[in-house]
């Protein structure tokens, strides 16, 4: 087997045995509980609210796991020194990083698949309409989760778990505000403010590009060209972060 696959499968097994997928029970209870509550409270738009709520929950749970498992992917290996015996094997450091990343992506994929099934079951239960655009939204959420995982992994190659978590959360939050920053840059009179906000706009990922939940909730599809562009953007950013993580990891001492 290729070293990347061996490490990915081991990471996947680690995640399963760390009971990460237990969050699915929490997700299901949250979704069904909230939907029941909303069905009682709202008269007109409770189908839209259930859809909105479900997609938001899938997004939040996916991102939270990506951040908190992602920061430990490599950081924990270094802190616990398990990396010593791995690096002594005939594998390249790049293969190790990619294997760890793929292992978590496998976990997140299974996690998201189950969440989507629970979500669709909930919609069916409440007789809410199921549009194709829901899957578009889910696909873009998955791209965002891939990107956030790469962010967490990138930071964990050179700093502590706490700082990695802080940096990743910061980047995630700013990533959702880049359009606002662009607006500030356009309206600001100060050249310094313009320079700073423009830099942040171009350096940080524009995560709002990957957010079509609002359209999905009302059943308005997004053009496939947009979806393809947004996905490609997210995947390229992910690849850039992984390349950065590999370069840093390649150079560091243990």
């Amino acid at each position, binding site marked *: 087997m290729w070293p990347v696959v061996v490490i990915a499968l081991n990471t996947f097994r680690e995640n399963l045995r760390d009971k990460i997928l237990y969050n699915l029970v929490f997700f299901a209870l949250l979704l069904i509980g909230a939907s029941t509550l909303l069905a009682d409270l709202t008269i007109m738009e409770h189908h839209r609210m259930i859809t909105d709520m479900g997609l938001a929950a899938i997004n939040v749970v996916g991102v939270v796991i990506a951040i908190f498992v992602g920061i430990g992917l490599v950081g924990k290996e270094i802190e616990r020194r398990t990396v010593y015996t791995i690096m*002594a094997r005939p594998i390249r450091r790049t293969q190790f990083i990619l294997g760890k990343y793929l292992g978590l992506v496998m976990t997140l994929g299974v996690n998201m698949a189950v969440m989507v099934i629970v979500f669709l079951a909930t919609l069916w239960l409440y007789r809410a309409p199921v549009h194709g655009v829901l899957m578009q939204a889910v696909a873009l959420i998955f791209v965002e989760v891939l990107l956030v995982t790469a962010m967490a992994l990138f930071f964990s190659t050179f700093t502590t778990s706490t700082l990695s978590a802080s940096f990743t959360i910061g980047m995630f939050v700013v990533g959702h505000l880049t359009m606002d920053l662009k607006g500030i840059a356009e309206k600001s009179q100060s050249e310094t403010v313009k320079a700073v906000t423009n830099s942040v706009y171009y350096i940080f990922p524009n995560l709002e590009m990957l957010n079509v939940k609002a359209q999905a909730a009302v059943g308005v599809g997004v053009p496939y060209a947009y979806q393809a562009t947004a996905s490609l953007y997210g995947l390229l950013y992910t690849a850039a972060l992984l390349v950065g993580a590999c370069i840093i990891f390649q150079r560091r001492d243990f």
Partner: protein
Amino acid sequence: METIRIEGLTKQFPSGWPGRPPATVLDGLSLSVRQGEIYGFLGPNGSGKTTTIKVLIGLIRATSGSVELLGKPVGDVPTRRRIGFLPESPYFYDYLTAEEFLMFYGHLAGMDRAGLAGRVSRLLEVVGLVEARTRQLRKFSKGMLQRVGLAQALIHDPELVILDEPMSGLDPIGRKQVRDLILGLRDQGKTVFFSTHIIPDVEMICDRVGVIVKGKLLATGRVDELVNQGHTQSVEIACQGISVERIPAIQAMASRVVQRGSQSLIVLPGPAPLESALAEIRKQGGTLISVTPHKSSLEELFFQSQGQGQGQGSLAPARSAMGA
């Protein structure tokens, strides 16, 4: 043939503060380990043993100097297929069972599943963990972790085995098992390089030893030669029938004399005055019981080396008993 060759290895770590000089952990270290020998890397805590091993494994990069393993520069990825490694106080993936753990490391070494199954069973037997093969490592004691760690170092049948403090945390039975295992590896023609600060471990099983203090190799060579060469030996003479306290010639030669009844014990500071002392004993009518050369132990050498390392600004150059 040299299995490990280190020349002028220096490793410095940045201090982390601007203007403050880097910490030199290894300072021009040179040594070589030959194929099929057990080499003990002896030094006190903080002397640079683990740092040297980390360089050998490729976990850290040398600031300067050259390191070759099995004829290839350190960091050559395919060569690692021929090397086994056990770190100090190992911590492994504790969610894996012993069997899964060894399978994982075997796969990483490029072994196929069919060949691995038999190898895993055999190694678990060798390290005495057959009964615990389906137990997760989180439930293992420290000694068991050390043993399963040894098994992972050997899973791919490496030519060179590098062990960092392999006996630490083991009870006397466990230590003997590890010693026997290392000797068994040598019998199979493997080369073993292991670090320790426990002198009897080195004296019992090593073909050659290197003493490292403050990042410098202070001595290297065969254990028996190292403890004798360049160090004062004393000689003990046991005899009877004379009272040595009344023989000034012998008292002048001896560093210590003990008279117990008709028996005398004469301790000479070295082998040089032995013939004169024996002649004097015969001349006085004494009967010789025994002559015992007293060799300095590796422990004495170790403490002398440490004294050199700590007491002097510049350390003594490495002394090789083998000329290596």
